[in-house]
């Protein structure tokens, strides 16, 4: 359970960015979470509320945008989206696909701030 330390990182980075933008309050944080990021959204939302207390993020929304797992298929010569993180095989041709193009993201995309 490392979601609390992840939540603290989010609050810290968002505070820095909001302060740079001369904001007084953060209303929402948009977070990209890849399928392979190893994050449990429920635990993160719970931790976020605690980590935001007493900061300019207190009471703000954490909007989690899920990023699918996308791999490169060397046989079809294209990027393919996978439904499962347990089976890294091209859904069309069955080729094992070890090259991950998307799905490891754990990034703050944007903030909604006031004023």
């Amino acid at each position, binding site marked *: 359970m490392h979601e609390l330390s*992840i939540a603290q990182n989010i609050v810290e*980075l968002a505070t820095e960015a909001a302060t740079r933008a001369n904001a007084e309050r953060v209303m929402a944080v948009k977070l990209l979470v890849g399928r392979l*990021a*190893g994050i449990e959204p429920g635990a993160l939302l719970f931790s976020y509320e605690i980590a935001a207390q007493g900061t300019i993020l207190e009471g703000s929304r954490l909007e989690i945008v899920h990023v699918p797992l996308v791999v490169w298929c060397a046989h079809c010569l294209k990027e393919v989206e996978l439904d499962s993180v347990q089976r890294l095989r091209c859904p069309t041709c069955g080729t094992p696909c*070890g090259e991950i193009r998307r799905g490891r993201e754990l990034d703050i*995309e*944007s*903030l909604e*701030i006031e004023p």
Partner: protein
Amino acid sequence: MTTTRIVEVRVGVLKKNDELARALRRRFEEAGVFVVNLVSSPGTGKTAFLERTLSTLVVSGTRVAALVGDLETDNDAQRLARSGAPARQINTHGRCHLEAEMIGAFLDEWDLNELDYLFIENVGNLVCPASYDLGEALRVALLSVTEGEDKPLKYPTMFNSADVAMITKIDLAEACEFDRDAAYAAIDSVRPGMSILEVSAKRGAGMDEWLVLLRERRESWQRVVAGAGRSPRMAP
């Protein structure tokens, strides 16, 4: 009435750890020390495996050291020190993983230039350590025959982040009715093409293959580092 606005941020949440890990990796490359991060569940046998690895390397004159992470106690560092290699304990006091910052803080007493290998035994946990780069050159995920062949399917993030899968306690395979094919298929399913080794730290089976792989990985790493012009030792 107040107005809200959107600001683009686009920053990795683990930016601080990633930056520290990059700096560590550079430091390891400059010193010529090959760093291995061992990850697994609690009870897979990381410490026994590492103890045997260190003892064998020490006897062969290889210069090795180990850092070991646990929530509490220095029992594992004491066990590892029996090998004759310097070993230091990192107590995380509740944290479920090691971070790059902790590694940096524990390196000060050692001259990295005097080491060939540094092993980092992570906290026993197959979830959280996956996200934290420690600046290692090789990540080994261990899985024992007593744990169930589908463990890689249950923890795909960790197995996907590793470079080598190590099946431990192989001397117990028969007693546990370990299904080797199922385990290999599970590993290959979450991380196609990953090297898989089998080892018994107790009996010594598989240790030679592991040490060969370790040496080969270090040599190819040295070539890459030398190509990037970073290692003084590889300079002509």
